[in-house]
Structures are given as C-alpha cells and as structure tokens.
C-alpha cells in the first residue's frame, strides 16, 4: 500500500484540515471588534461617584512590564487593590501579575486576541514606547487633575506625539555613587555634593572626572592609569562606570554628552547630535584608550555586571533605584562605605541627570476608560505602592518619608540624599528613552551599536555614527 492509496482511504481527513485553514485565515485576516471609543473622558472623569447602585465593571490591572512582579511586592499590590474595591461599589479592580520576562509578549498576545487588560504598569518610559500606540491619551482626563506637585518636565516625558500616555508616579534621577574606601586608599578627595562646587580647585566637568578616574584606576601591580607602567590588561580597580545601561548608545551619549535625540525636530530625520558624539567619544576613549571604564568583558567579571557592588569601581553613574542593589542579597558586601555625588557639567555646558520614571497607563482598547482612569487615579496616589516598588515618589510631599526609609536601611552610613533631589532638577529632555519611529527596531539598532563600541577597540567613532544615522533613517522611514 503506497502513500497515495493510504490518503485516498481517508478523504474525510481533508475536512478538518480545510476547516482549520479557513478558521485560521479568518482569524488572521478578520478585522475583529473595533475598540470602543473612549467617549468624553474629561466630562466623566471628574463626575462625583454615583450614589445609586450600579453593576460593578471589571477593570484589570496588568503588572509585570516593569517592577512589581516580585514575590514580596505582590501582597502590597493586592492590599491596594482590595482597598480600592472596598472604597466603592462600581468598579471591581482585578490584579494580574505576569513574570517580567514574559510580560510584553503575553500582553501583545492578549491584545491580538482582543483580550487586553485595561491598566498596565508600573512601566518605564522605554517599555511604554513599545505599546505607545495602544495607550489611551490621558490628556483629557488629567485636564482637571491637580498635578502641581509633579515637575512639568516629568509629565512631558510621557507625552508622545502630543498624546499623554502616562502620569509620573515614581522618578529615579541619576548621580554618581562613589566608593569612599577606594578614594581613601588613593588619598583623593571625595567628589562634590553640591551643584557648582569645584573639585580640588577645578570645575566639576567630565574632563575633571577623567583625570580623577585615571588616578583611581589601578592595575594588579598597583600602578594607576596615569602611570607609564600601567597594565591595561590586568586592571584591578576602575575609576568610572555607567552600569546597567545595557549597551544603550543613547543612554551613554546622554550620560556623557547631555540631552539629545536621534530624531530631529521634524520628527522624521535621523541624527546623532554633536554633544552626543563628544560624549560617546569620551566614553569610548575611557574604555579603550584611557582604560578607566571597564569594557564588556571586564564588566562580566565584576559581580556579573553589577560592577559597583564588586567593590572595584570607584565612581558609578546609576539611578536612584540602584539603592536596591549596592549590597548583595547574601554574603559580605564588598562595598562598605559609600555615598553619592552630583554629576559634572557636560560638553553642552549643562548638567544632565539621565532620568528614569515609572507610570501606569490605560490601554485604549478598554471598554471602560472612565472607570479605568478612576482606578488609575487611586493607584497613582497610593504611597504604599511607591514604597514597595522602591521608587522615589514623583509627588514632592511624599519624598521625605521615602528618604527616611532609606536612611534607616543604610544606617550607620549617612548618605547625602540631597544630591538625588538636586539632580532631579536636571533631567534629560528629551529623554534618552524617548520615542523614535519604529521604536523597537530603532532601539535594537542603537543597542547593536552600543555592543560594538563596548567590545571593539580601534573604531572610527564618527564613521560608525554616520553609518548608524543612515541605518536609523532607514528604520524611521520604514515606519511610514
């Protein structure tokens, strides 16, 4: 019996296959239900809660795209959800927590299946861009909401193409964490804690930081990076790092070059601004020429990428959220005495503190935008959530309590948290995580560049950046 005969005996097998194919074609090509129009949110958002009985509307809050999915955070989130449900009868808020590594894919799949949640977050600026087109414009809703306690530049960070896709809940300015023990060992003065202060008679600029970092960089023979005998192949302590930037060339450009954007003001042209070129060259030379910044191989050997924790980084530009991870979860910390310092003036003549921020957004597919916004309002005003996420509140009046908590945690060290507050006045604007056309692809291309810079010596950076601009232009153009 050959294969054809066998097939011929079971003609009925063709039926389910054909049905499946038709169903799939239909599912793939069908238009599905149109999203419900958001109606007139401004009018309804400010309405007083109805005293009349109502049928509860279910609103789903999807957590996992940013922080908030850790085991110890979930009970606190559940408590806030319970408190909201107890506070009214018309909305039944449900919490869904998804593992961070799967959250974006799961959300995309659920959107595709017309089963999208209503509220998503906490989520950072970059991650929010991935779903920017699917988010509800909160502009009409927040028109009558008092946001005076939140800095306008932070609110603007969530304005994408004129659409307000989030309200800042948590902010994380960046500054310099420094290991005091390494400074003491090198007999060098600590970096400044005040904006405008000098360092040993010199203006606090990246050029000053370079000199300082080279003195702090020491090889295994005890020679520092200013010495002719310095061995760059065997570095024991590095002077400077900007850890956890994940190969992001935009982030590095911002740290060392100041605010900028790869997208020109016309919204379509790719560019790499001059101050970013200068900043990136500083960083690249720091790795491969001056050797005070660790390359990718060295980073992996330093506490698996958490370089400052290794005790072998003297200064590290990181965000406020890094208080999470200065000490290891178990064992004796390598860093015992540390503090924070202000960032120097960049090549554009300004101080720039690369800012991260978390928010909660509403998907525009929600069938109940008013109720979703009401729930969002409650969540964004819950300091318990901010605390459990380890975040610095965007609302100014909540910050004192936040820093008191940190003081208790790091006692007997007395960390100068005023530095963090000072740096909040210098956010990068536009954000280094800001919108780009065809965002995911463009972001990936920038990380490809970062990877290349981090692993490859001897590059002509200007040529690389020219090629990058050309590549980005192609990616931007493909979005249209």
């Amino acid at each position: 019996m050959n294969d054809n005969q066998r097939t011929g005996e079971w003609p009925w097998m063709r039926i389910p296959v054909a049905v499946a194919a038709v169903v799939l074609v239909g599912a793939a090509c069908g238009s599905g239900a149109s999203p419900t129009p958001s109606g007139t949110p401004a009018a309804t958002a400010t309405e007083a809660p109805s005293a009349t009985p109502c049928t509860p509307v279910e609103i789903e809050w999807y957590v996992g795209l940013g922080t908030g999915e850790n085991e110890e955070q979930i009970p606190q989130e559940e408590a806030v959800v319970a408190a909201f449900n107890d506070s009214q009868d018309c909305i039944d808020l449900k919490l869904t927590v998804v593992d961070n590594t799967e959250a974006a894919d799961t959300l995309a799949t659920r959107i595709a299946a017309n089963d999208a949640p209503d509220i998503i977050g906490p989520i950072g600026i970059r991650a929010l861009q991935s779903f920017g087109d699917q988010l509800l414009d909160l502009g009409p809703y927040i028109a009558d909401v008092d946001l005076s306690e939140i800095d306008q530049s932070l609110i603007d960070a969530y304005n994408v193409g004129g659409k307000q896709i989030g309200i800042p809940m948590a902010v994380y300015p960046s500054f310099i964490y420094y290991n005091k023990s390494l400074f003491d060992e090198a007999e060098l003065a600590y970096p400044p804690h005040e904006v405008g202060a000098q360092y040993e008679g010199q203006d606090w600029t990246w050029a000053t930081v370079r000199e300082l970092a080279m003195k702090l960089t020491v090889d295994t023979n005890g020679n520092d990076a200013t010495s002719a005998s310095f061995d760059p192949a065997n570095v024991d302590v590095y002077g400077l790092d900007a850890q956890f930037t994940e190969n992001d060339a935009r982030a590095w450009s911002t740290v060392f070059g100041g605010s900028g954007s790869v997208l020109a003001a016309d919204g379509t042209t790719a560019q790499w601004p001059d101050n970013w070129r200068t900043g990136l060259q500083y960083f690249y030379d720091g790795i491969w020429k001056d050797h005070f910044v660790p390359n990718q191989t060295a980073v992996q050997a330093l506490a698996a990428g958490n370089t400052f924790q290794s005790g072998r980084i003297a200064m590290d530009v990181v965000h406020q959220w890094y208080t999470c991870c200065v000490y290891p979860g178990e064992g004796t910390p390598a860093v015992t005495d540390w503090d924070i310092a202000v960032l120097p003036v960049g090549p554009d003549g300004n101080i720039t503190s690369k800012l991260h921020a978390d928010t909660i957004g509403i998907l525009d597919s929600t069938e109940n935008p008013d109720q979703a916004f009401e729930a969002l309002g409650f969540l964004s005003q819950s300091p318990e959530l901010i605390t459990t996420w380890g975040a610095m509140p965007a609302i100014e009046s909540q910050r004192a309590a936040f820093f008191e908590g940190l003081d208790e945690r790091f006692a007997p060290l007395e960390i100068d948290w005023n530095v963090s507050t000072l740096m909040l006045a210098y956010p990068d604007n536009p954000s280094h995580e800001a919108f780009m056309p065809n965002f995911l692809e463009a972001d990936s291309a920038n990380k490809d560049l970062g990877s290349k810079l981090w692993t490859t010596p001897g590059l002509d950076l200007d040529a690389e950046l020219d090629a990058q601009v050309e590549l980005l232009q192609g990616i931007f153009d493909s979005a249209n």
Partner: protein
Amino acid sequence: MSTTQAAIEPLPTSPRRRGGWRAVRERESLTGLVFVAPFIVGFILFSAIPMVASLVLSLTDFDPREPDEIHFIGLANYQQMLTDPVLHESLGVTLRFALLVVPLTLAAALGVAMLVNSKLLAGRNVFRTLFYMPMQIPLVASTIVWIGVLHATTGWLNYGLEAVGLPGPNWLQSTFWVGPALGLMGLWGIGNMMLIFLAGLQSVPTELYDAAKVDGAGSWASFRHVTLPMISPVLFYNLIIALIAAFQYFTQAFVVSNGRGDPDRATLFFNLNLYREAFGFFHMGYASALAWLLFVIVLGLTVVLFKTAGSWVFAGGERCPRWPGRSAGRGPPRVRSATTCGDSVRSPR
C-alpha cells in the same frame, strides 16, 4: 498482517466474502486509527495548524499589538528578504557555524563512541554514562556554566591555556572567537549522537573485522573499509540531524548574547533573528516568512544529502563499498550481512 492476508486471499471471492473482508479491514483500520489518533490529533493541533497559520501570516503584516490593522500584502515579506541585510548576515552566521560545528560534532561523537566501544577501555559503562550525562542538564543551565568557563579573564579554559603559555582569546566578546566558542559548547551535547554511533558500531559483525585482519588490514584500514561503510546509515542519520540542529540553533546563542546576537551580530543566528523579528519587533508576518525560508533551506539541504547518499551510504544490501586499489578477485571479505551487502549483491570484480 501478512499471515492474515495469506489465510484470506485464496478464499473464493463471493460478494459475501468480500463484504466480510471489507468489514475486517475496516475494523482493523478503525483500530489502527484509534492507536494513531493521539499522534494525528497532536500533529494537527501543534504542527499542521500552526504551519498553515504561519503560511497565512507570512502573507500579511500582522502585528499582535495591532490585530485590527492586519493587511494582506501578498509576497512582500518574501520580497523583503532579498534586501534585508540583517537576514543575510544571520544566514552567513548560521552557515559558517554549520560548516564548523557539523563535522566537529560528528567527528567528536564518533570518536567518543569508538572510545567507549573499545574493549581496551576499563569501566566502559561508566564512561558511556559520563559522556551522556550532559544531555540531562538543561541547555540554559549548561550555557550559563559555559559562559563562566569561557570568560576571558576569569574562565577556567583561559586559565588552562595560560598555564601552558598560550594566550587565551576573548571567547565570547570577540566576533571571531565567539563561533568557535559556541562550537566548543556544542561538544558538550554530543551524548545522543554518541549513543547512536555506539549502537551502529555494535551492530558491525565482528566477522568483518576478522576477515579484514586476515586480508592484512590494519586499524586504519579496518576503520576506513569496514567500520565507516557499515555505520554509514548511522552517519547519514546523524549528519541530517546535526545539520537541522545547526540551522535551528537558538538557545545557547540567545543566552550568550542576551537574545541580541552580540557581539556585533556575530551570534545572530537565523532563528535568533527570526525570534527578534517576531517577539522583539512584533513583525509576525515577516517572522512567519522567515520560518518558511528556514523550512525550505533545511528541506533543500536534506534533499541534496539524500541525493548524495547513494554514493556513500551502504544500507540493507543496496550498495556495497568498493575496495580501492584492489583488482578483481581481491575484493572485500566474502562475509555477507543483511545489514550490509545483501544476497543480491555480487562481489566486486
């Protein structure tokens, strides 16, 4: 089945009898269907339907974040492949890797199989177990261990190389060395291939070796003219499997490069690029087209290998190896085996 047929076929072919035979056949078919139903259902649900779905999706611009915006775009995704430099790069990475890893793993697996098959090796069963044990370790876990072993400054491998005066390369951050590093990692997983080779080696009749010895063959000649032809079907099978595995290479590259093909796209394998398109950029339509391209490439290579098999694979007496340099009457040992030279095969002249 053949016994039943033999019993039934000679019977008179009256309509009634034919009806009975048909009933028996239908009953047998039904029983057979019940037994194979789990596979058929599984195949339809988890292979056939997704394949059809991906074929349909490959003709669209489907983005799961915007399901309502799906459009039929014909062959545009396939056309895009022609001008996609990242795809071409990923194909190059995959091809280079396949050329390195397929022969390497085949040779290593065969070598280890011969080692653990050798009577000279004490504790053969222990070694067989030890060589197979890495297969029990999840790929992600073993890859993470390998990342540590291959680290340029803190890895054991470079410590070892330094100990003998050799400079250790930057295995995982160098665009040149990361391929060989992944190949080295691949050797960790030769356990299955080794077992299949071992089974093949053990099926070679010892009479053939005895006859070769009588003919004056040494170890190499025995291996070249007895072992290799006799295990050629196994070699062929392992070659096909290794080639498919090389083109489907993903997990180790994903872990080593954080899913991005670092350094500088040197580990952006075809499947990793496909994954990035599908789940990184949500270009599901284009990713589906890439999946079909991969299917066609692997199918094509497999067909080519099958076409060449006739010249070097010796199975079931279909073909006997010629003995180069031997004149008529001085052919291979006249020992016949059902698994090599069948009765229909004549001795070489």
